[in-house]
C-alpha cells in the first residue's frame, strides 16, 4: 500500500501512523521533520510543483516497496506557511523485519530531500530568504545508488 499526500493542513501523526500499521508486518519505522526555530526562523513556507511532486513521491515509494519488500510506504508532506515545531514531512515504512523498515525510511527521506520538487523559504521577522540546496543532501541521497 502506497499513500502519498501533499497538503496545506497540519499532519495528523496518529492517524497517519495508524494507516501505516499492519498486523501482518510487525515493524514500522517513521521519520518526522519539524520546522526548527532555534536559529531565529519565525516562519517556513514550502512551495511545490503540484502534480509533479505527487508523482515523484509515488515513484520513490514504489522503489522502496520493491527494494525492501515493504507492506506499506507513506509520505505526507505539508506545504504553505508553517511555524517552528510544525511537522513538515512524515515518512512511514512498514515491513516484516525492522532492518528493512528502518533502511527504507532512511532511503525515502534522503531521496525526498533531493528528488522531489519542494522549495523552502525562511522568514526571520521581516526578512525572508529562499533556502539554498545543501551538498550534504546530495551525498546522503547518492549513497542509495543511482536515482531511479
Amino acid at each position, binding site marked *: 500500500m502506497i499513500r502519498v499526500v501533499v497538503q496545506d493542513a497540519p499532519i495528523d501523526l496518529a492517524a497517519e501512523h495508524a494507516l501505516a500499521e499492519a498486523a501482518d508486518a510487525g515493524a514500522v519505522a517513521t521519520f518526522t521533520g519539524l520546522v526548527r526555530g532555534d536559529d531565529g526562523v519565525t516562519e517556513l513556507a514550502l512551495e511545490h510543483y503540484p502534480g509533479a511532486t505527487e508523482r515523484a513521491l509515488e515513484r520513490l515509494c514504489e522503489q522502496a516497496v520493491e527494494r525492501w519488500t515493504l507492506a506499506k510506504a507513506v509520505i505526507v508532506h505539508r506545504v504553505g506557511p508553517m511555524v517552528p515545531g510544525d511537522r513538515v*514531512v512524515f515518512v512511514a515504512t512498514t515491513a516484516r523485519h525492522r532492518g528493512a523498515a528502518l533502511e527504507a525510511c532512511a532511503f525515502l527521506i534522503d531521496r525526498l530531500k533531493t*528528488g522531489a*520538487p519542494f522549495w523552502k523559504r525562511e522568514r526571520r521577522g521581516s526578512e525572508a530568504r*529562499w533556502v539554498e*540546496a545543501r551538498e550534504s543532501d546530495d551525498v546522503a541521497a547518492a549513497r542509495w545508488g543511482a536515482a531511479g
Partner: protein
Amino acid sequence: MAIDLLYFAWMREAIGTGSEQVDPPVDVTTIADLVDWLGTRGGGYATAFADRQRLRAAVDQAFVPLDTPLAGAREVALFPPVTGG
C-alpha cells in the same frame, strides 16, 4: 508551437509570474535553447537564469537535463535546485 512554462521559488519571484504560455522560434530545439531565448527578454528573466549551475528543468513533469530536446513538450518547468523535505 505553444509551450506552457512554469517557474518556481525565487525564479518565479524574479520573473514576476508563475506561469505563462510562449511560442518560441523554430531554432529553439532544447531546454537550454529555450532558456537562452527567454534570457534575451532581459530583466527578471536574465536574473533568474544567470547561473546555469543553479537551474533545473522538467518536461511534462519529468525531471530532465538542460540539453533535452523540446520536441513535443507541452509543459516545461524551470526552477532552482530543490530544498524540500
